[in-house]
């Protein structure tokens, strides 16, 4: 890691900061997408985006402390994301069969009031 070629040169704190900024932005965009998309599949895709942001933040902070626990946690994030994708997509397909639409507002009667 120390003898990187020049284009991968360790730019130190700036890299960490850009990574943290990127993670915050990805999380927020994922959240905005989750709130504003109507397509149920895309809503779940936006949660995947938020998972990515969390993973990136963990790896960036792990790099700061020289600790690999952040990277190990990303493995768990990947596991949960895979499980979530399998279950959520199964559910979405079921819902789609019921209403013949992917619009999440077709199910708005499930909410209270």
């Amino acid at each position: 890691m120390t003898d990187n070629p020049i284009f991968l040169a360790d730019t130190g704190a700036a890299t960490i900061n850009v990574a943290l900024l990127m993670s915050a932005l990805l999380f927020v965009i994922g959240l905005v997408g989750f709130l504003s998309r109507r397509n149920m599949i895309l809503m779940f895709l936006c949660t995947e985006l938020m998972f990515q942001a969390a993973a990136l933040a963990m790896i960036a902070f792990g790099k700061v402390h020289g600790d690999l626990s952040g990277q190990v946690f990303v493995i768990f994030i990947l596991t949960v994301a895979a499980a979530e994708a399998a279950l959520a997509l199964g559910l979405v397909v079921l819902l789609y069969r019921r209403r013949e639409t992917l619009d999440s507002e077709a199910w708005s009667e499930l909410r209270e009031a």
Partner: protein
Amino acid sequence: MEIALPPTQLLAEAIASPAAIALTSACAIGAAGLALLMQPGKKGLRIAGTVIALAGFAMLLVEVIKRASTGDDGATTAIPPVFPVIFSFIALAGAVRMVTHPKPVFAALYFILVVIATAGMFLLLGAEFMAFSLIIVYAGAILITYMFVLMLAQQSPVAGVGDAWYDRVPREAVSAVVVGFVILATLSDAYFSERTQTQLADARANGESAAIERSWERLEGMPKLLLETARTAHEDQWRAAQREVAAGTTAATMPEIVSIEQKADRSALRRIEGGVSVTATLADGSTISVAIPDALRPDNSRQVGVDLVSKFPAGLEIAGVVLLMALFGAVILARKQIELGEDERRGLAGMRRITVDGEAGGMR
């Protein structure tokens, strides 16, 4: 350690400082651009949104990079972080397109772009193993599942109708962006405030040496790899010595290391300058001391593997259980799909049908 300030004082500090204002206004500009980008069907607005969002992003980047240099006594900022900026730009553009694109399949493809850019960022942060497993698992497996379901559940395009209306029209775009802005401003203030930046710089100051220290500790737990590493280091040094003595005069064979000596407390490594040294036994029974330079420490994937099984065994088991349960759940959900005719049965029995008739939209 920092002494925690009372929240009112923190708030006052956050509001009053000009740096915080710069950061927050950059967030606001980016958010305004995103809100404009989400307006469907108006090309002019979308172009303006792109420009404004880019401006906000650039302001954020400049601000953030500037802060890195203040916390870091300016030594490492000679090289601008070109690749991080490129990767974060790609990821951001992909994410915004994913959130705003009217075609779901394209949104999923843009997500792959985000995954690849994130993986590039992981590489820059020295997480090689996670970078490639991210691409394999996300771009390879999860996204393919999404594409499958998108194509399964996609309404067949009717001529003249185009994309489904619920993909074109966002729901409450402005309030969603406002929520996003609040969270982004809070997060960026938390990450890039002077207090945090100093803490990060402090942690970074001994982060690198801590990483090297830990990698040697892990190597100590892997006797076979330790032997291999010692052999490699020994061979390198031996070759270098041969070259120095005389070119081509000796055809001596290199003495093979057969074992590494361990002390009573099972430790084999001694720290020396720029690496570690071990005491190795050669084939003829003599012992030598072999210096292993830092460059030969175990690579990222080995270290992550060791950490995974040695520090988080319970987490590993739970991950297995989660995957197994997801498997069961998916099977049960898939079995349910067989009972399809429920709606028709309701219709026959004279009850209200659940399904909303009509296509491309299902207005309630």
